[in-house]
């Protein structure tokens, strides 16, 4: 029967585990020494992998969002080509037309971003009040849903996404209007 022997290690002068392993295998060839370092290294590598994959996914989602905002805005400006033409033909300067569209689409982008960002923030806030998450803040007893608590930086990130969506929308509308004007002239 295996016996459990409890060893208390002196943290101030840690044992030479390599030497201990060698001595053990010299004396008892079937013995193994597992100090959990290999396991924790594998776990750490896996966690890093998950982190990198997460960041990659975040980059993909951000790119996809920006692209969808860009193409949706371009399509919206294209449907307003008549407005661009009429303003152009009644003597509006190109800068005036572009500014009008930019202002309008900045408002539309900000409204859309605020709705999406607000919904995301409310969802995170609601989840953080779930009873199962009460222990989530305890480092020794993490909850499965701990990651759903974004913290202040997370909420700042949501705000940044709203600002980014509004900015991209406004800029795309401006560029598209100038492109349309070049085609009309």
């Amino acid at each position, binding site marked *: 029967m295996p016996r459990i022997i409890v060893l208390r290690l002196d943290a101030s002068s840690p044992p030479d585990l390599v030497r201990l392993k060698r001595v053990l295998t010299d004396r008892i060839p079937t013995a193994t020494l597992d100090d959990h370092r290999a396991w924790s290294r594998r776990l750490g590598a896996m966690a890093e992998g998950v982190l990198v994959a997460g960041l990659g996914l975040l980059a993909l989602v951000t790119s996809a969002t920006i692209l969808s905002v860009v193409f949706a805005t371009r399509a919206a400006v294209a449907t307003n080509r*008549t407005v661009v033409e009429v*303003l152009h*033909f*009644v*003597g*509006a300067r190109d800068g005036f037309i572009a500014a009008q569209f930019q202002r309008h689409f900045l408002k539309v982008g900000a409204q859309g971003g605020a709705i999406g960002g607000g919904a995301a923030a409310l969802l995170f806030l609601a989840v953080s009040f779930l009873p199962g998450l009460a222990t989530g803040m305890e480092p020794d007893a993490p909850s499965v849903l701990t990651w759903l608590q974004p913290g202040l930086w997370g909420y700042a990130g949501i705000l940044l996404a709203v600002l980014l969506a509004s900015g991209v929308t406004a800029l795309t509308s401006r560029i598209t209007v100038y492109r349309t004007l070049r085609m009309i*002239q």
Partner: protein
Amino acid sequence: MVRFENVGLRYGMGPEVLKDVTFSIQPNSFQFLTGPSGAGKTTLMRLLFLQLKPTRGLITLFGRDVSSLDPDEVAVIRRRIGIVFQDFRLLDHLTTFENVALPLRILGKEESSYRAEVSEILHWVGLGDRMHVLPPVLSGGEKQRAAIARALIGRPEFLLADEPTGNVDPTLARRLLRLFIELNKSGTSVLLATHDIALMDQFDARRLVISDGRLYVYD
């Protein structure tokens, strides 16, 4: 006011659609532009409205060579020209009043400063009671008159009208012609593109006839 000298225009590498066009338009004058479909009327109108640049020849508008204008200068010259499009080009999301006021809005004017003026011109073209209606609700003739009012609100020195009577009945066509004649009497040069011979016979004016890309002037 307008001078064309040996103007030629071709689209891309295609044949010339306008050949050696030479004519001038004097201030306070009235002329019809006519010719068969596809002869080049609309192309000539687009040249006059600075939507196209000639491939050869010289066009002078208000004393400026159009080939040397930058986009901002083009915008400033366009404000001196009123245009009535054959397809009206009214903005469906704006009321008749807002459509007509558009040339003043782009100048940054406050609505309070032009409300009376827009209202007056809408009454003049017979749309006083249709001021707050959206274009989809207007009839063809009403849309045409709204487009004319929009072209006139900026008090242009030169008015271009592309088939302004093309979508209306003969009675309304006569009314619109009278409106253009009145406008001309008030000092605006008018170029009215039409292929309605009966309409042209109602008013003795200079005729510019375009045929096969060449322009013939009958004073």
